[in-house]
């Protein structure tokens, strides 16, 4: 057999699997998004609707806009908090930092946990009767002990933010440690000798040189925040009410619980838009030509 033919044969299984699990569902979901596609009626999908599904989301569905708002807020807050904490930790743990030791290895543990598991464990910790936080605040600040964290809309939102930030800090920290290690030490020392204080060295020399890595980290985290589902599903299931319903959760509920697959597909495709924008910038930073 000629090498030419052989090489195509060898990659064919992988291509087929990707096609069946990624490309085909994508195409189908795009097709469904233009149909009335309800699972509780026969002959799926039903009528061709054109862009009506999209119209419906935009014009008549407050729940859609609610989840857009929740997702947006959630993304902005988690990206900002995770990046800030991770940058601080990375500064401490980077070569020449103040905390470098076995801490780095421990750090990866939260990231090794599955998001669903993080959701379950946080749910337990915030349980108002036997949770860890109940016990903790019972000793430290009793007025906070009996708060039912997950029953209050704002507190529930804060809890999922916390769980997400906690879970993502390690990965971002490790990436930023790598980024910091690639900042040439002599530029930092040059700035010190030139007369810069610690803060100015960071602001004028370290941060600008860390920017490409930081940008990648922020975009990557934004992409993951936008599609957050597991923790919401495990911790609050979008509640109380729809206070913590992210877009992914909204799509899941409308398709599986209410059976509106066509409509859910159109919302999913709307979510693709911000993802595409972020991915574009991500690719631009990662594959930047020097």
């Amino acid at each position, binding site marked *: 057999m000629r090498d030419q033919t052989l090489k195509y044969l060898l990659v064919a299984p992988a291509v087929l699997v990707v096609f069946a699990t990624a490309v085909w569902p994508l195409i189908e979901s795009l097709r469904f998004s233009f149909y009335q596609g309800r699972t509780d009626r026969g002959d799926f999908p039903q009528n061709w609707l054109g862009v009506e599904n999209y119209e419906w989301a935009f014009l008549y569905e407050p729940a859609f806009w609610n989840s857009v708002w929740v997702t947006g807020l959630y993304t902005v807050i988690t990206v900002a908090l995770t990046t800030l904490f991770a940058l601080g930790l990375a500064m401490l743990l980077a070569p020449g930092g103040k905390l470098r030791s076995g801490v780095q290895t421990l750090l990866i543990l939260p990231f090794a946990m599955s998001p669903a598991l993080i959701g379950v464990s946080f749910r337990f910790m915030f349980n108002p009767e036997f949770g860890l936080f109940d016990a903790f605040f019972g000793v430290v600040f009793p007025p906070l002990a009996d708060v039912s964290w997950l029953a209050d809309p704002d507190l529930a939102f804060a809890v999922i933010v916390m769980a997400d930030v906690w879970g993502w800090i390690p990965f971002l920290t490790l990436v930023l440690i790598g980024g910091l290690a690639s900042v*040439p030490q*002599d*530029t930092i*020392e*040059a*700035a*010190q*000798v*030139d*007369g*810069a*204080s610690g803060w*100015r060295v960071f602001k*004028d*020399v370290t941060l*600008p*040189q860390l*920017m490409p890595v930081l940008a990648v980290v922020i975009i990557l985290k934004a992409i993951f925040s936008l599609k957050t589902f597991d923790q919401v599903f495990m911790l609050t299931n979008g509640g109380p009410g729809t206070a913590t319903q992210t877009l992914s959760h909204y799509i899941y509920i409308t398709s599986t619980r209410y059976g509106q697959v066509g409509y859910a597909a159109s919302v999913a495709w709307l979510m693709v838009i911000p993802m595409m924008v972020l991915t574009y910038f991500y690719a631009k930073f990662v594959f930047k030509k020097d």
Partner: protein
Amino acid sequence: MAEIRLNNLTKRWGDFVGVDDQSLHIQDEEFLVLLGPSGCGKTTTMRMIAGLEDPTAGEIWIGDRMVNDDLPKDRDVAMVFQNYGLYPHMTIFDNIAYPLKVRGTPKADIKPRVEKAAEQVELTEFLHRKPKALSGGQRQRVALARAIVRTPKVFLMDEPLSNLDAKLRVTMRAELKHLSRQLQITTVYVTHDQIEAMTLADRVAVMRHGVIQQLGTPDNIYNDPANMFVAGFIGSPAMNLINGSVQSGMFVTTGGTRLVGIGGQDRAKAVLGVRADDMEVHGAGQGDIDVSIYAFENTGESTLLTVQWGKQRVIARGDRHLRKEQGETVGIKLNPDHLYLFDPDNGDRIRLGDK
């Protein structure tokens, strides 16, 4: 402008001694070169002066202030790094202006001073570029300009020419020398290149294993080395070190050849130091010793003869018109005024009386 005093300076990392209890007094406006092989403690000494490394023990004085506890920014020094340490995200103008900016120089003053510094190192046309658009030599000039844009008390230069190609290094060396004479600021210069040390320094401190072996003018360390290490480190080619003994006033090689009268008491073991330039090449039988040529090299401005000297090889410099063949026998005559004797056990110089 200021003098620098190092009092019993020590730097240790665990068991490793970087700088071992060294004291050094650098005069105001002096150009002092710290010279030595890698790992000898020269860069560590400089980094301690800059404040980038904390001494384990000892005092550092700049002018009339002990700066041990001062941050680098408060020591009023300027430093040129081996890898330049330029800020890659800033233009050349901003790189040079940075020390002024962080020290709160009024905006109106910054521009003329940056332009003047750029002019001194001939960079005026590159001010709007970023460092990566410049060549190595140009980057080195930016680093220099950044150092001279202020008038610091002290210049510190850490192997500033070692990343340049050989030709550029010679040009930059002359420019550095010119600039330093013009500026008259106390300078500490670290290098492993003895030519740089010889050409630039007012005084050279030759270091080894964290200890200053000899401190003196270039003339001084070249013509009057304190020990075998300094003798072997300074000069190109390195000084020839010939093993032998001293018997009734004569130096006798290990092979038994009575070589040259040097006086002094008898010694069972001694090392004779003689530079290539102090060995005259004559015809066979006309020198102090007949040797056969192991290799003959013509460098253009002179010729180098590596000759087999018993079990050792020794390098002699000949006239540039000299032509010899490998294997030929020649007579070598030693210049009796420039012979050095060392103790092979500890490397110490054995002074040959008042010769």
